[in-house]
């Protein structure tokens, strides 16, 4: 047996041990597993995974478990069964090119453990939909494949807070699909607070209707190895905003791969990702923007800013623009910098101690991402977490 088939083989037993699902779901699972088996886990030879080595995940023997997901649903949200969403499931997050999505699909749970929700047409939700996946991995390690599909009806308005946390050793392989109808307003948050020994690979894929307004925030603070794929396909007049904040220390690694697909004309996208790196941590930002031939009058702006607090931290940042239309405006920029010596001196010259001054400036760097969070409870708790975190970093 080759190494690849050995790695894949470890997942075969739990796959076949699942009770079979009804008709098309079982077929989808099998297709997922087949594709996973063909591809195996990616290596750093794959262009998409050049800077992220998932060997620690591929080599591990995890016990596969159903994800323990806590859902808080505001009034007006409908829970659906997996069997009701055949037309949508897997349409945003295709697994043809992504082994992790394929693996997640192979473990689709049809017993109500997958999160399948519908926000009816025109509904305006007063409070956020909260989806919290907590994994207690223990010492030997478990793997979970949480799956979420949210259908937001035309002209509906909602916010979604997805949180990932846990303890011990584990691997969360999450897939979230969001389908937003015409004119829908969706504000999505993915907060990754995984345990220090945890691996997290996630895909958040959105398909957005005409004139829909979609914002997704990816806040990544925890985990040993984290990879986020964030994708959005825009229609005519759609507005999409992708915000990201990653804060890493020690030997943490976080990789954000985003893809904005301007499929139709008059779409607008804004992307701002900020990173704070300390210790021997590393981060990757890869921002792909595709403007299809049809998508005239596209307006797209991408920014990635990194604050590097140590000598040994590493950031790889890369824009990837593919523009096939000719009447568009696309800008992109990336910066990598340290704390500004002049700002530090200014604060110190007013009596503020050096480590406090560093903390203040580090916090200030993240401030504009925090300010974009519209859910007050989330904003407050994040502010508190950041204050604690930067005390560490300032030392």
């Amino acid at each position, binding site marked *: 047996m080759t190494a690849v088939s050995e790695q894949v083989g470890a997942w075969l037993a739990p796959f076949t041990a699942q009770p079979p699902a009804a008709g098309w779901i079982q077929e989808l699972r099998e297709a997922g597993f087949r594709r996973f088996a063909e591809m195996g886990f990616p290596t750093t030879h794959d262009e998409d995974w050049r800077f992220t080595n998932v060997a620690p995940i591929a080599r591990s023997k995890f016990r596969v478990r159903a994800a323990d997901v806590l859902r808080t649903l505001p009034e007006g949200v409908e829970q659906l069964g997996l069997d009701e969403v055949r037309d949508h499931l897997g349409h945003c997050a295709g697994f043809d090119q992504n082994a992790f999505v394929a693996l997640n699909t192979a473990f689709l749970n049809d017993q109500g453990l997958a999160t399948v929700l519908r926000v009816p047409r025109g509904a305006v939700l007063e409070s956020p939909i909260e989806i919290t996946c907590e994994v207690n991995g223990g010492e030997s390690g478990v793997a979970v494949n949480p799956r979420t599909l949210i259908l937001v009806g035309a002209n509906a308005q909602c916010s979604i807070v997805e949180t990932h946390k846990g303890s011990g050793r584990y691997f969360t392989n999450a897939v979230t699909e969001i389908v937003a109808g015409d004119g829908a307003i969706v504000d999505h948050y993915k907060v990754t607070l995984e345990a220090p020994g945890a691996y997290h690979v996630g895909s958040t894929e959105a398909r957005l209707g005409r004139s829909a307004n979609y914002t997704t925030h990816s806040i990544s603070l925890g985990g040993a190895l984290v990879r986020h794929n964030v994708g959005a396909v825009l229609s005519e007049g759609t507005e999409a905003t992708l915000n990201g904040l990653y804060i890493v220390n020690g030997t943490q690694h976080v990789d954000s791969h985003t893809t904005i697909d301007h499929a139709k004309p008059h779409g607008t996208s804004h992307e701002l990702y900020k990173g704070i790196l300390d210790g021997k941590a590393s981060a990757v930002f890869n921002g792909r923007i595709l403007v299809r031939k049809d998508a005239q009058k596209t307006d797209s702006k991408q920014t990635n800013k990194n604050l590097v607090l140590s000598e040994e931290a590493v950031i790889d940042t890369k824009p990837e623009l593919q523009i096939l239309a000719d009447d568009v405006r696309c800008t992109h920029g990336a910066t990598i910098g340290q704390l500004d010596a*002049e*700002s530090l*001196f*200014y*604060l110190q*010259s*007013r*009596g503020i101690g050096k480590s406090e001054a560093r903390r203040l*400036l580090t*916090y200030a760097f993240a401030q504009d991402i925090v300010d974009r969070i519209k859910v007050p409870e989330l904003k407050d708790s994040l502010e508190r977490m950041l204050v604690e975190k930067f005390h560490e970093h300032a030392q």
Partner: protein
Amino acid sequence: MSLLEIRDLHATVGDREILKGIDLTVDAGEVHAIMGPNGSGKSTLAQVLAGRELYQVTGGQVIYDGNDLLAMSPEDRARAGIFLAFQYPVEIPGVSNMYFLKAALNTVRKSRGLEELDAFDFLSLVKEKMKLMEMDQALLNRPVNTGFSGGEKKRNEIFQMAVLEPRLAILDETDSGLDIDALRTVAGGVNALRGPERAMIVVTHYQRLLNHIVPDFVHVLSEGRIVKSGGKELALELEESGYAGLGIEDEEEAVGKV
């Protein structure tokens, strides 16, 4: 004992020696003006006194209130009562002016053995000082110096000084970029802080500011040395005959000079 005693101070930036032996004594209650052409070392002197690490002190001594100033960190100097009004106040997006000033005031107060001010007392103090500087209170909630006009930045410096109540204030070209009205306001703020316990070093290129902040002593700096000292009439003399009258080349006026 003098409040500040600078003895034969030498400082470099990179390989370039900028201060080439400065001697200056400042007593409490005195206002000293330091004048000189661009590049003479005025701003370097101001920044070295505040503890900017960009400059290396290569010789000499500075005794402040009986202590070795050069051994102190910038924050300790501030806590001991030194205040530098920056020539170019730094913009710090993401940190509100209010938060910044409260943190600064409370650390300074703590080191002086005073109680920290609560939000209410802080606000009433700040309001009083803002009135003095004719500043818009909205500036408090804005990030430090971010999006401020040149004049607002300079007012903000003197406002901070009024709040922190230093023992030795160093004003680095506080007049540059100010129109006459702003200059009057800023000078008014400075004059309100003059007192027997407080000393000031006013660094300026032009005599203009010294019409409003009348110094006790004037020193002319050229090529890293004090070449002439006198009373306030020295500033007027410079106004009449320029630095050239003292045989000093003023780089700024030598247009086209490489």
